[in-house]
């Protein structure tokens, strides 16, 4: 725990104005009756400390669609780049939930590490200060606790706010957070405020249903590639892809060209493993021919391949896929089903104890 400061409700507006001096403000705001992360005009628009948004904040670094480059048009030349679009605008992402802030750490390992860095993602990430707000309102679909996380997890945040009856206790988490925190000249929080902040997040943690989902899940999944459970799971799925679009960790994308009269743009847009075309080859062959194999990919990717490849799950337990699924598929039930299936198999395996 770093030092903690107090931001009173009287100073909130001025503080947010200060943030706007630092960079373009993105925060939870009401748009068309929906709480969502969007560009905010100022303090009066910002809605802090509420329940989770329906859509995640991943678009701030990895937009739903973006221009990678623009090209010129000549009948004999299909190689002329006229512009590349790297966005270095300083930004402040204010009021994300701890689960959203934590999701950025896994995305960093995809886009920021490996053989090549992704310059579009990395530019936005490097120029954005992340100020998370501890979660006082977990809902029945939240399961961050299944990952050892909780309502006051500061992972992935530069600064963490604890809501305290309209005021905020401010914890400066990262070096970038500590640096900018110097400019705010906030008074140190007193013991009473800190205790109250901890009590509020502790009460929020109490409201999360106790849940065991991830212990041994990689081993459980290891033997289940050919299992019939994927067919059962996928039976109701209508392949709409909403789970992946609203997921803070899903990062699969497509690249397409968009033609204009004068030239065009090469665009990147979110794609999803739940769509048949995702892996369909030009010959017509598709190595994932049915929705069962696509569900298996979604679960395996999040809970087996990503832990093996980058050391983190591709899930933070935000519950958005559960809330948004039109046919009420629940990833928690699927993981429990996986665990049961693994237990059943272990029991049935000859020569094994228990």
């Amino acid at each position, binding site marked *: 725990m770093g030092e903690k400061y107090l931001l009173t409700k009287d100073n909130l507006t001025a503080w947010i104005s200060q943030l706007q001096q630092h960079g373009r403000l993105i925060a939870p705001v009401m748009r068309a009756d929906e709480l969502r992360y969007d560009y905010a005009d100022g303090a009066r628009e910002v809605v802090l400390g509420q329940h989770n948004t329906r859509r995640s904040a991943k678009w701030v670094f990895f937009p739903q669609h973006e221009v*990678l480059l623009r090209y*010129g048009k000549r009948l004999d030349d299909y*190689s*002329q780049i006229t512009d590349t679009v790297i966005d270095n605008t300083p930004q402040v992402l204010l009021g994300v939930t701890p689960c959203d802030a934590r999701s950025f750490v896994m995305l960093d390992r995809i886009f920021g590490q490996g053989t090549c860095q*992704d310059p*579009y993602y990395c530019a936005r990430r490097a120029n954005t200060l992340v100020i998370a707000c501890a979660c006082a309102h977990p809902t029945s679909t939240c399961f961050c606790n299944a990952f050892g996380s909780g309502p006051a997890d500061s992972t992935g945040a530069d600064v963490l706010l604890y809501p305290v009856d309209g005021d905020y206790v401010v914890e400066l988490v990262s070096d970038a957070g500590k640096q900018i925190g110097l400019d705010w000249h906030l008074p140190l929080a007193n013991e009473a405020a800190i205790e109250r902040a901890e009590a509020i997040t502790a009460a929020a943690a109490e409201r999360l249903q106790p849940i065991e989902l991830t212990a041994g899940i990689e081993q459980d999944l290891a033997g289940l590639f050919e299992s019939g459970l994927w067919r059962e799971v996928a039976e109701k799925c209508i392949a709409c892809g909403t789970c992946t679009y609203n997921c803070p960790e899903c990062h699969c994308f497509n690249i397409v060209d968009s033609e204009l009269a004068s030239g065009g743009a090469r665009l990147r847009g979110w794609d999803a493993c739940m769509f048949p075309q995702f892996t369909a080859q030009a010959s017509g062959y598709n190595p994932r021919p049915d929705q069962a194999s696509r569900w298996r990919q979604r679960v395996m990717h999040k809970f087996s391949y990503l832990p093996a490849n980058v050391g983190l799950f591709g899930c933070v337990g935000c519950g958005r896929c559960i809330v948004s699924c039109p046919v009420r598929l629940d990833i928690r039930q699927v993981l429990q089903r996986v665990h049961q299936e693994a237990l059943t198999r272990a029991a049935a395996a000859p020569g094994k104890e228990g």
Partner: protein
Amino acid sequence: MSERSCGQLCHNPYLPLPMLIMRIADEVDDRTIKSFDLAFKNVNDADQFTYTPGQFCELSIFGQGEAPFGIASSPVETGFLRFTVKQAGVVTSKLHSLKEGDSIGIRGPLGNTFPLELMHGKNIVVIGGGFAFTTLRSLIITLLDQRADYGDITVVYGARTPGLLMYKNDLNAWEQRGDIKVVQTIDVAAPGWERQVGFVPAVVEQTAPSAANTVGIICGPPVMIRFTLPVMTKLGFGSEQIYTSLENRMKCGIGKCGRCNVGRKYVCLDGPVFSMAQLAELPAEY
């Protein structure tokens, strides 16, 4: 932004390098497969681009998109990069409509390579079928350039008809050499064809290359591979001695877009070249 570490790509891995189409040649008699010899438009790009047989590039045609293709030229052939492309989808159809002198883009080289270090000092058996001979051409020309570094080299290449065998000039030139055994075969007898007739698995069995101290490379239609592998097993090849190249659908080519994985491995990063022993550890998702 921080510097990336990969050798060949420019600072932004999504930006294609501009290439001039120097030469276009039909490879098969139905004209659905053409070779495109490309030259770098920027000297700097040419200097920085080094590759090894087995690697691929994303060919980019602005307005149509990108598609991945194995590099069919060998690093020992300087001055051009060759890609042999079958007309199938949007990008390949556009490519087939282009003329010599037009320009397109490439991103790469991408992916891993054939195991040249492992192959050093060993006998080599190359088995190909139909259109899947592009990176095999690159490999064979590279092996022949350093001929003394390898033992016996045997090539079995099959297609449905004589007209569908690609790289005829290369094949015929190799046949003239005494230091490589080339077996060309077609599925059913055709007038004027005096070489082998029969499917690749049967011809491999007949040719019977020794498995001792040998590395086998096999690329072709899935059905050809499926029936050739048991033959190789019978000849004594272990799964760690046989390599193939996978072709899952790709977009980014740098392990980010999440499309081409087979289990936890990405074909674009960990492949496209895998040994049969490696594939045995992975789910059959290709």
